Structure formats: structure tokens, C-alpha cells
């Protein structure tokens, strides 16, 4: 029963699932530790490019801006102008799309895990009784 639901899930996802070819830049953006750190900082609050550069004293401002550009192309960061400042906002939509496409389907539903556990325990109990 659970197996059927899971198979349907995968078939339906494959047939009607989100188009994922445009997620390539997201993987690329997430593959770098500095960019992941930038996303961590932005998930606390939006920050100006200057404030972000100050958080990475070991990097040049130019290098931080390059990282921001990669994040922006991947749609993970949305810039907003406020006066002459540029504020950077995190946009978690692409991460959720990756979750839908690559993670949710491989995570065993907890209900299924509980059913298996029950079967295992019952089998064990039968063996002991027999």
C-alpha cells in the first residue's frame, strides 16, 4: 500500500513535476562555502553589500560582489535599492524547489518507518512465542 503510494508519487513527479533544468545555477551557487555563509547571514536579516563585505575581512569587496552576482543569477539573492545602498534579500524558493525535486522523494515517510518497525516487533514477538 505504502509502496504503491510512493511509486505513484515518483511517476506523477516525473510526469507533472517542476521543470528542473533551471536549477543548475542553484547547485553551482550552493557549492561554495563563502556563498553558503552569505546566505546564512542574509537569512538573519537583509544586508547591504558593504555590510556583507565587512563580514568577510579576508576577501576583497570585489570578490564578495562576485559571489553575490552568482547568488543573484541563481535567484537565491534578490537585490533592492534603498537610496544609494543596495540591500540583499535571501530568496529561499530555489532551495525549496531542490528539496521538492531531490530530497522529499528520497526521505522515507515517518509513517512508513513506523509501520515497518511494528511489523519487525510483531515478527520478533511471534518468534519468541513460537
Amino acid at each position, binding site marked *: 500500500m505504502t509502496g504503491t503510494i510512493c511509486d505513484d*508519487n515518483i511517476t*506523477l*513527479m516525473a510526469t*507533472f*513535476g*517542476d*521543470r528542473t533544468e*533551471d536549477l543548475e545555477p542553484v547547485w553551482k551557487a550552493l557549492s561554495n562555502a563563502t556563498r553558503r555563509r552569505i546566505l546564512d547571514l542574509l537569512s538573519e*536579516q*537583509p*544586508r*547591504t553589500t*558593504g*555590510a556583507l563585505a565587512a563580514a568577510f575581512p579576508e576577501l576583497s569587496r570585489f570578490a564578495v560582489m562576485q559571489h553575490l552576482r552568482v547568488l543573484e543569477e541563481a*535567484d537565491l539573492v*534578490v537585490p*533592492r535599492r*534603498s*537610496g544609494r*545602498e543596495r540591500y540583499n*534579500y*535571501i*530568496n*529561499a*524558493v530555489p532551495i*525549496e*524547489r531542490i528539496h*521538492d525535486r531531490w530530497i522529499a522523494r528520497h526521505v522515507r515517510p515517518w509513517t512508513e518507518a513506523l509501520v515497518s518497525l511494528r511489523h519487525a516487533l510483531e515478527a520478533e514477538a511471534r518468534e519468541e512465542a513460537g
Partner: protein
Amino acid sequence: MSGMEADRAAASLPERVVSIHIAAPVDRVWAEITKVGAVQRALFDTVLECELRPGSRLRYYSADRKRVFVVGEVVEVDPPRRFVHTYRFTTWKTETPTLVAWELAEEAGGCRVTITHSGWTSEHGKLAEDTGAGWRGILRVLKQEMETGRIPWKTRLMYRVMGWFSFMLPRSTRNSDQNRNGSG
């Protein structure tokens, strides 16, 4: 932290921004998000009721009109680019409304949809975060609906289950109550 950032933090909590590329013409997406009087599948199967002009009262109802989820007022309508309205969810404890801005822009291969939700104060507490998760889901479903004409089966299942449990929704979501209180 710069002086400007400190000012922003004191005055209000940061706005939330969500954005997605949709491989569909900007006019089609605009028509969907401003569709009045019929179910918008991406927006949790709600029905938008308003006039598309500034100052109009705005409501998002359940499909059967027994519940009202969002109350507000239209602030700006600039087809097919900007739709801005005030926003208060009927289950919120606070009366302080927030502001939702839909921005649509043509982009290679389709359009970009960006939602900026601002006006958050300390009264709203964790609501900004929770609502942000809602908008992200809405944009993902809207993308699929516009690109494939379908919404994911998981979303349909979720709507079905939400329907079953609608009797558990707080009294504040009842349509009659809102009509009494809210002139908007």
C-alpha cells in the same frame, strides 16, 4: 551596523522578498493573480474579491465563501506590473495590517514574479517567517500551474485535507463575522 540599518531595525522588522521565474507570458500571470470571483488554485484555492482600483476593499475567501482569510485594501494597480494591497490574516491577534506587493516583469523566456511583504512590526512576532513560507509555496505552485496547467498532486491533497479540517478554523475566519467588523 550602519545608522540606516539601526533605524530600520527600530522602526520595523525587515520586509520579506520571494521571487521566481515563470516560463509564461507576463499577461497570463497577471490575469491569474488578479482574477476576481473565481478560485485561484495557487493561492490555496481562495477567491479574490475586490475592485482593481486603489481604495477598494479586498478579501480572499474560501471557495465556498464561508471563510475569509485575508482582509485588506487595494493600494496600487498597474497592469501587468504591480498589484499592491494591505494584508491582514484573519487569524492574527494583531490588528496592524501589513503590505503585499506583487511585481511582475518580463524576462527572457517568460516573466519574473516577485512578492515583497512589508510592514512587519514586533507585534507580528513570528508571523513574518510563517507567511514567508506560505508565499514560497504559492510561487512554486503558481509556476507549475502556469507552465504545465496543473498543480502538484501533493498540493491538491493538502487542499483536500485542509477542507476536511476547516471546521477547526477559528471563529475569526467566519465570513459573517468579518462582514460585521470589516468595512475595509
